[in-house]
């Protein structure tokens, strides 16, 4: 399966990554090559094979819902690029 420039551009938007024109050009070429290599997988018949997303036989790991102390607000916000009081600050979302 081939991947064209428009698909890469759309995928970059889904991934929330801005690409320059040259970057888009180069990346499209490289992804085309990489996907060409990955197409090897289409040779295999996998119709009756179960997918493995995880190798451990774990299912629904649960624990008691017991309240615990959280990290202090100051410590968490210390890494924020922008903050306002006790909140992370982002550009306005609602008009």
């Amino acid at each position, binding site marked *: 399966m081939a991947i064209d420039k428009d698909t890469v551009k759309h995928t970059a938007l889904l991934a929330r990554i801005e690409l320059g024109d040259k970057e888009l050009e180069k990346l499209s070429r490289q992804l085309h090559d990489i996907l060409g290599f990955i197409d090897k997988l289409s040779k295999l018949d996998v119709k009756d094979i179960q997918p493995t997303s995880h190798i451990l036989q*774990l299912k629904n790991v649960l624990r008691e819902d017991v309240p615990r102390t959280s990290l202090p607000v100051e410590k968490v916000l210390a*890494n924020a690029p922008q903050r306002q009081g006790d909140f992370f600050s982002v550009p306005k979302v609602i008009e």
Partner: protein
Amino acid sequence: MELNFLTAHELIEKLDKKEISSSDILNSLYKRINETDAKVRAYVRTPDTKHLTPSTKLPPISIKDNICTEGLNTECCSKILEGFKPPYDATVIKKLKEAGAAILPLKTNMDEFAFGSSTENSFFGVTSNPWNLECVPGGSSGGSAAAVASDEAVWALGSDTGGSIRQPAAFCGVVGLKPTYGRVSRYGLIAFASSLDQIGPITKDVTDAALLMNIIAGYDPYDATSADIAKPDYTRALENNIKGIKIGIPKEYFVQGLDSEVGKIIEEAITKLKSLGAVCKEVTLPHTEYAVPVYYIIATAEASSNLARFDGVQYGYRTPNSKLPTQNLIEMYKKTRGEGFGEEAKRRIILGTFALSHGYYDAYYLRALKVRTLIKKDFDDAFKELDCILTPTAPTPAFKIKEKVDDPLKMYLSDIYTISANLAGVPAVSIPCGFTKNNLPVGLQIIAKPFNEEALFKVSYAYEQNTPWHEMKPKI
């Protein structure tokens, strides 16, 4: 001899006898780092000595830049995590501190977010291979491996998603172990591909790796994928006796693409193990050729999801272009991520997003998960009659800096022998097994059944006790 040249277990003996103090070791390490790290560049940043808690019990340990250390910069060697000081310790760090080890207050270099096989994709610049400064140290834990090989570290932690501990260990001539998936807690390891990632030791010899595993392994309620299985004392597997142990040599690993000198050195290692009493036979892992394509779908898909958290809101870099509150949020995300991620990170996030996107999910992601089942089954079948599987760690010795940097596909193929162990979740170790004509180290990979790290220690210890490779030191 300066203390930094000794192994951790030799230093522990001296500490126990009170012949030395841990600050003697630190001084010796800092002296070495000052002398040689301008050439090797194994570490990022300069030591922040105010964080140092002197310890008496264990030698200090060097930590890869993607493992959270409270209050100490942890940036995954990425611009997007610039200045990040974690508010908590990873479980492995907590365990090390409790055991009495000091954390060296400067982290080791890596490919950005562990995306790479050469440590060339670091925001902080390239690390050199201590054996030949023009060559790469391997990756992505290249800084940890180079630090241990150059005696700028006593021992170190790395992380391994597709070979990121074992391949640099092979390139730098040290021991590197990827534990069974679930054996070591991933809590506080900044996630790359959550179904593949494991933290593991990079050390000067096999004994040190066993000692380090004794500290870091075990169940952790903070990691839902950590296995609730009792942890053995790994040092008990260090007995110089492998008579009758059954070792499989998969024929698919000895094909075109394997450097002939590396192939010859591996053959010699097999002969050595036979002479020590191991029973070696050829086996087959028929789906080996699909491991790299499966990996680059699963690993990038998981990465694209894991790295969504780097959006300029909670930590790290935010584009300076969007300080005005009226600016669009999505524009802020796009600019932050476009400016903050390096080339390989963008490539992988976009590839992974594509593999998961509507219309391509079945053809790529789901298909890759199914082929993963076949790869895992290859190992299950082979291990029915075997204790271990033995392969080269990498198809070539360390390559030149810049040699593969413009050809991502070629770079991906340097992980061809290490990726399967992550997909199948099995433990694997790389140990030094010889040198090429150009004096570059070669690594031997040993793979065992899930939760049977003891078999790895047993075989690698016996091999090490009967060969001189781990005693060789590079001239820097």
